[in-house]
């Protein structure tokens, strides 16, 4: 909390004001222009200025007052009225105030009226007062000196005889959020908490929390938390109690990191007396407060089973509540309470089924979406619960696609032996859907069901029918699925191959589908009589194939085909290897070279490498570890469930990373395409390629302009994680040329063909030797990364040559690989690059994981090392540094 406060202080109110004004000026110049032109202009502005401009720059529409003259007009009118006690003055004031507020709303800066507004505020009209409070609350922060003027009348209003006015004044007083005015808050808050009117107390309680956020020490020193605690237990008004609870939870949670006392108090909230006190009054609470209490109680640990049953009996009727949030909170509580009692836990699933299904179908699509996300989580834990209610998840024609998508996932998850037929029939209907993304999803869903089930007979037929539907996207999706299916059920090859053989490779354009088709051509070349010729024609069009994934698959497929039907494939193989060796893509080139050497060395060894007998894949790897799933379950009824990742991954600053890298890493998983039985490192690189692709895709549409700010522009959490790079940006980064030949290294390697892994192990410092062939899959990496503590965190400088060579992340990968440090993921664009490396100690299992952030404009790299064996990490760090420093040197 404290930290956050500091950050907000960094942008001084004055700066904000200046910024706001300059925007305002630009607008007044542009006012006459057409509104969309103004909007375009403002977007440009937001890119050009380091932190984007304040929220509301709206184009003034003709009917709205605009420009400076209007403001000064208002000012003089307000002046006239300020002292007037004439009858009807309040009415004219009201109109003027409305104009001021309306200008404020559309983003025109009316802060210059502050003095006049305050002068006019001496009135008994409550609506006028409210408008005035609103105005003051909006501008006090940017005008701290003027805010002092308002303190007086606000304090006076806090003693008004009308409780409404007392409450409103107190709320406004606390909303000023000006740090040097806190001393004026303590008095009114103290009396507000003791007010005999519940409205005032309700406002005062939240006021205490506001005070805490402005100045924690003032709040603690005034002993407000203790008062709140007393109120929470005594106050007859439930909204006051609820507000106390929220305030105390927030205050004690943020205090508990520094004070044991606060930590104890926080846990006190979960003590039996307090929990029972709140539960016994649950029906009096408003629906929102009920959510709050239920959420609190779900963290309570009852002492025995009878206590659990008591709580559940008491809250049983909450499942009938009209507010879906209350129902979900109750569901969470029930599930958490019964975790230790397996049989009751099952009964809970039965009990919550009907209310949850009601929530899906009632309310807005957005609400359904929220509930469906939760159902999906539940069904993952207990697939049987909704298996007889699958019809609830049939999509309606007019539903938004996000609801449909979740429903498809539900249908996939609930499919079992008894309902598969109906579900698959329904899914096939969607495959012809007008909404193409949904059609694709539904085909994938059919495939997933096929991979889950034992009896796939009927499903295979359906998939093959898809192939005959002659729609590009249907064919593409179906091909990918058929490929996966064949990997799991090789016994279906005869049926599938017959249909796949009829598909012309010219009709398949999508890389994934094409790769799948090529894989099947290679794998089943003995059964597809024209396989060699199809492959040959594909090789002939090598240069037109843009996807490296497809080219990689093509190489492998031609190899496989060659071992099965050598005479027919020989020509194609020669052509493919030649084309591969000349390929500009590193991976393709490497694989071609690898095959070439392998064939040169020994053909039968090559066959055993490329075409070994395969075992059917029994289970495809799950994308999420069970630990993560449990974490998400613990955070039931929150965003974690919707995002399908635990909260630390999206709320922690550290995990969020500079350019949301953690997210990308989170999505890394062993993809089903890793069919090739080749070196896993290549798989990793393929993944890595995807990752790069996706990051660079994201960059489009942001700002294609100067290479410098490309990455920093979109980072909205600029104040926290990116502050370093932002600062670096300040000095001109013209030195980096985006045009430096990217293929430098590739050419070097091509020429120096006798490069080999053995000799490449560096003349490293003797004590630590690395395993040159370390292997680690992304899943394990991710897991380890979360588990291990940071054992070392350092910053190095890079050589200028190194910087010059680092135009793409790939260049560094290859370099580090030659030092036995493998890359598992990388991303970024000049000047910021981010890498995740790993290395393994030679003759030992211990791994080193490295996160490396390189900023080319400052020639600095920051690394974080995590290691199984912490003691050796300094040695490793030296090794890493020496490897890094050699980068770019001839």
């Amino acid at each position: 909390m404290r930290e956050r406060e500091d950050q907000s202080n960094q942008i001084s109110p004055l700066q904000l004001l200046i910024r706001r004004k300059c925007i305002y000026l630009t607008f007044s110049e542009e006012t006459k222009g057409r509104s969309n032109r103004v909007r375009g202009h403002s977007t440009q502005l937001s890119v050009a200025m380091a932190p984007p401009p304040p929220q509301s720059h709206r184009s003034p529409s003709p009917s709205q007052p605009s420009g400076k003259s209007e403001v000064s007009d208002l000012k003089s009118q307000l002046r006239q009225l300020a002292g007037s006690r004439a009858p009807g003055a309040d009415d004219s004031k009201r109109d003027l105030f409305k104009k001021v507020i309306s200008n404020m709303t559309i983003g025109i800066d009316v802060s210059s009226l502050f003095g006049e507004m305050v002068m006019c505020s001496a009135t008994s009209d409550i609506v006028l007062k409210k408008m005035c409070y609103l105005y003051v609350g909006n501008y006090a922060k940017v005008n701290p000196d003027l805010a002092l003027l308002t303190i007086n009348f606000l304090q006076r209003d806090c003693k008004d005889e009308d409780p409404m006015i007392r409450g409103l004044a107190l709320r406004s007083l606390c909303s000023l959020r000006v740090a040097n005015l806190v001393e004026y808050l303590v008095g009114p808050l103290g009396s507000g908490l003791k007010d005999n009117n519940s409205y005032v107390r309700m406002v005062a309680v939240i006021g205490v929390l506001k005070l805490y956020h402005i100045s924690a020490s003032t709040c603690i020193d005034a002993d407000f938390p203790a008062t709140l605690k007393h109120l929470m237990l005594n106050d007859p008004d439930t909204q006051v109690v609820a507000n106390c609870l929220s305030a105390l939870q927030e205050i004690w949670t943020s205090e508990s990191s520094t004070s044991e006392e606060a930590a104890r108090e926080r846990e006190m909230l979960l003590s039996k007396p307090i929990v029972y006190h709140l539960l016994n009054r649950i029906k009096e609470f408003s629906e929102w407060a009920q959510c709050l209490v239920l959420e609190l109680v779900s963290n309570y640990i009852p002492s025995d089973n009878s206590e659990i049953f008591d709580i559940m009996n008491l809250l049983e009727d909450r499942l009938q509540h009209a507010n879906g949030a209350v129902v979900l909170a109750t569901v969470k509580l029930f599930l958490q309470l019964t975790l230790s009692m397996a049989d009751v836990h099952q009964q809970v699933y039965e009990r919550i089924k009907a209310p949850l299904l009601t929530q899906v179908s009632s309310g807005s699509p957005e609400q359904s979406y929220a509930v469906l996300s939760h159902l999906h989580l539940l069904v993952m834990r207990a697939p049987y619960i909704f298996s007889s209610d699958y019809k609830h998840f049939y999509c309606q024609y007019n539903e938004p696609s996000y609801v449909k998508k979740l429903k498809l996932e539900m249908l996939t998850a609930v499919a079992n032996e008894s309902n598969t037929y109906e579900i698959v029939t329904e899914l096939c209907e969607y495959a012809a859907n007008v909404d193409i993304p949904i059609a694709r999803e539904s085909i994938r869903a059919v495939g997933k069901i096929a991979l889950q089930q034992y009896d796939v007979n009927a499903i295979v037929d359906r998939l093959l029918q898809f192939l005959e539907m002659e729609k590009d996207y249907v064919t593409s999706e179906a091909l990918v699925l058929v490929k996966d299916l064949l990997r799991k059920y090789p016994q279906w090859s005869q049926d599938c191959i017959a249909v796949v053989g009829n598909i012309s490779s010219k009709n398949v354009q999508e890389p994934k589908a094409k790769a799948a088709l090529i894989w099947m051509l290679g794998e089943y070349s003995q059964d597809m009589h024209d396989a060699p010729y199809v492959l040959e024609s594909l090789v002939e069009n090598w240069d037109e194939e843009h996807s490296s994934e497809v080219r990689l698959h093509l190489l492998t497929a031609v190899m496989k085909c060659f071992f099965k039907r050598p005479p027919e494939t020989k020509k194609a193989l020669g052509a493919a290897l030649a084309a591969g060796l000349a390929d500009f893509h590193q991976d393709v080139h490497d694989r071609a070279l690898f095959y070439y050497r392998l064939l040169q060395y020994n053909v039968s060894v090559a066959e055993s490498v490329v075409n070994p007998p395969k075992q059917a894949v029994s289970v495809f790897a799950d994308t999420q570890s069970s630990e993560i799933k449990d974490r998400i379950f613990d955070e039931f009824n929150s965003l974690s469930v919707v995002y399908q990742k635990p909260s630390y991954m999206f709320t922690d600053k550290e995990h969020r990373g500079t350019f949301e890298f953690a997210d990308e890493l989170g999505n890394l998983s062993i993809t089903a395409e890793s069919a090739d039985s080749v070196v896993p490192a290549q798989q990793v690189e393929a993944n890595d390629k995807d990752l790069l692709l996706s990051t660079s895709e994201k960059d489009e549409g942001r700002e294609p302009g100067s290479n410098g700010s490309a990455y920093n522009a979109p980072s909205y959490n600029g104040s926290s994680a990116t502050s370093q790079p932002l600062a670096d940006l300040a000095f001109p980064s013209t030195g980096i040329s985006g045009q430096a030949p990217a293929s430098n290294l590739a050419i070097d390697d091509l020429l120096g063909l006798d490069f080999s892994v053995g000799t490449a192990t560096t003349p490293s410092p003797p004590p630590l030797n690395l395993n040159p062939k370390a292997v680690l899959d992304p899943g394990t990496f991710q897991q380890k990364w979360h588990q291990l503590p940071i054992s070392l965190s350092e910053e190095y400088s890079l050589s200028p040559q190194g910087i010059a060579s680092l135009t793409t992340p790939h260049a560094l990968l290859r370099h580090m690989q030659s030092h036995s440090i493998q890359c598992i993921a990388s991303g970024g664009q000049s000047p910021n690059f981010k890498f995740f490396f790993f290395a393994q100690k030679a003759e030992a299992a211990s791994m080193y994981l490295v996160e490396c952030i390189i900023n080319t404009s400052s020639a600095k790299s920051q690394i974080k090392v995590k290691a199984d064996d912490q003691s050796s990490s300094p040695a490793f760090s030296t090794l890493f540094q020496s490897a890094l420093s050699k980068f770019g040197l001839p």
Partner: protein
Amino acid sequence: MCMENGSFYSDGVFIQDQLDLPISLELRWGLRRKICGGATVSVCSSSSKLFVGEFGSWYTGSEMPVAASAIYFLNLRGDVLINRLYRDDVGGNMVDAFRTHILQTKELGTCPVRQIGGCSFFYMRISNVYIVIVVSSNANVACAFKFVVEAVALFKSYFGGAFDEDAIRNNFVLIYELLDEIMDFGYPQNLSPEILKLYITQEGVRSPFSSKPLDRPVPNATLQVTGAVGWRREGLVYKKNEVFLDIVESVNLLMSSKGVVLRCDVTGKILMKCFLSGMPDLKLGLNDKIGLEKESQLKSRPTKSGKTIELDDVTFHQCVNLTRFNSEKTVSFVPPDGEFELMKYRITEGVNLPFKVLPTIKELGRTRMEVNVKVKSVFGAKMFALGVVVKIPVPKQTAKTSFTVTSGRAKYNAAIDCLVWKIRKFPGQTEPTLSAEVELISTMTEKKSWTRPPIQMEFQVPMFTASGLRVRFLKVWEKSGYNTVEWVRYITKAGSYEVRC
């Protein structure tokens, strides 16, 4: 310090040590049956000691309650109509992030929750307004959306109906006031229109007298704000005491092209309008199976014959005494004044479909289609449906259509690629037909790729419930013992009524 059923806790506050469980013979959870309140195992002695565990070891869930940081109202262009920043933990540029990352991209409408930077955005479109809630931590999604829905309902009740860009522009001061009341520092407060209207008296601009709202007494209002019956104020007087009950059902149907019902259910709600004096106690009886059985069991008389229905699930307005519903299966409540939604229910078994649709669509070669649709009304001959619309999809490349209909009117609507057949008044037990010939432009590019969307139907059938639900009685008790007039209406509407063809 330990008393029989509770203990003194700090500052001399007496806190009950046990939960006030409903005094009932049937408790769902656990094996024990309570004979009367509090007579079970005493957990008093062991628990008056407070549980203090290791620091942070088990407080694993959300670390603190989650509050909204800001709420924005944007128009379709992305201009801010009104906004309220509740907390300082998000920057003012948040709305720009929303604009550039969601509103102006293809993302729009693909997912109502999205994370940008460190903040999560929840957005909803209501008529021509986007409402965006920004939170900086792990928020409660269901709560956030429900809050928006409730807030919109509240605004509507103030504006008198519409909620759109104009309504916001015309009432921005009022909205600011309301935004301040319904949420404080990001925590939802009171959203009940009945109570708020007591002290937010500035009316929407539809009233020309809005400049003098202070004529009404305000000061006492705050006493009501948080009274025990939060949804009703005391001292209401009506000359004529009336209650209006509307049972509104929407039927959802999905039928396959072979006439098999794939999915069919009814979601119903009971809307109530109360103009009753004082603090009346109401009791509603329906013909639902469990309620009837319970009643006959209590009164020890056999269940009356007649149709009973089984409700899959019910949810109630907060005024309904849920404990009594669970123990006695009766719906009893003290109603709010004016209009409100008393309950919602869901039924999947034994649904009476009001219409049957029998389509035959033949594609004759590449350029011609023959469409025959028969719609059969299966409700009573004396009843009739209103506003029946049947939308029959045709391919995009439709060039010319010609129809014959036995009832109503039909035309081709190119914007939605449908033949739209409208029948204003559709009597029961009739079966009008439409036959149409459709000529298509022959195109070379489109292969046989017309995927037939389902036929969709809209209708309203008054005095008919697809579920068969009936109100058996509505009893009103009030101290003064006045007479009330009760009105009941039934109506069945089409929800998503789809027939594949």
